């Protein structure tokens, strides 16, 4: 065989069209990665509605191309990079400033989503740690995050001053951080 012919054959094999992914495999792909991607966007500073929109936009961008097999971690990294670029483009277009800088957000995400996990383990650990807190701390957190009250309003409900609420919340955060670290390390052991 002529050497050029062999090269031509090899090229035609490598550039052959990738078969289109079936709807079932797309659905599995989306289900597998959507929570991880959505949380990543939340950590980067998106509100829940915007995280929904950018998750959809990211998947559509990725699904427009033939679905390559990256393996679990590779697909997640690729999706996260695409989502981050989409978010940065959106911020530049609408001239929005980031609520948190990217380095801190990514560090926070790496802390919350231990390898191979989409954050569910940390969230479960947080749930258990919340149960261990004193009733006043639980109530303060419920008012702050559940009812989205300001510090002054929380103070009025709990009979504390502004500084009292601030130090109560700070002490609670420190306790929760330590508790989550302990539980995750205990799970790993």
């Amino acid at each position, binding site marked *: 065989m002529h050497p050029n012919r062999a090269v031509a054959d090899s090229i035609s094999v490598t550039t052959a069209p990738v078969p289109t992914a079936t709807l079932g495999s797309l659905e599995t792909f989306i289900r597998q990665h*959507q*929570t991880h991607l959505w949380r990543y966007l939340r950590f980067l500073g998106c509100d*829940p509605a915007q*995280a929904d929109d950018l998750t959809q936009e990211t998947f559509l961008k990725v699904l427009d191309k033939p679905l390559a097999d990256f393996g679990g971690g590779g697909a997640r990294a690729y999706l996260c990079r695409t989502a981050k670029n989409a978010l940065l483009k959106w911020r530049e277009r609408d001239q929005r400033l980031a609520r948190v800088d990217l380095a*801190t957000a990514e560090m926070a995400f790496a802390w*919350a989503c231990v390898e191979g996990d989409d954050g569910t383990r940390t*969230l479960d650990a947080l*749930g258990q740690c919340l149960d261990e807190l004193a009733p006043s701390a639980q109530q303060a957190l*419920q008012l702050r995050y559940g009812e989205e009250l300001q510090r002054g309003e929380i103070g009025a409900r709990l009979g504390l001053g502004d500084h009292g609420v601030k130090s109560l919340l700070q002490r609670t*955060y420190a306790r929760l951080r330590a508790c989550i670290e302990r539980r995750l390390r205990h799970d790993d052991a």
Partner: protein
Amino acid sequence: MTTPEAQDHALHILLEERLGEHAPSDLTARILAAHQVRSNAPEPQPHQEKRRSRRRRPAPSPLPDRRSRRALATAGRWLLLPLLIALALVGCALAIGSTGAAPFIYTMF
């Protein structure tokens, strides 16, 4: 190494998800529907592309366009301003250099 600031940020997001109504919803159906709509959309016809490419573009302006001006003004890119001023001064010096005032430029340096 995770900083306490990053851990606090993580905690804040996780607490919002746990205690507030900010949990992730299942977007599978929504994404698949949008994907179907997009893949069923007709491909642009060759003659349409041709017509678009024939459209005349306006002549490029030597001044920065509105988007660049906006980026300069708002996105914290004032750092470029000294460079632009320096370039403008060098341009002025070159322009004056070709006139009768050229000997006076030397005294500036």
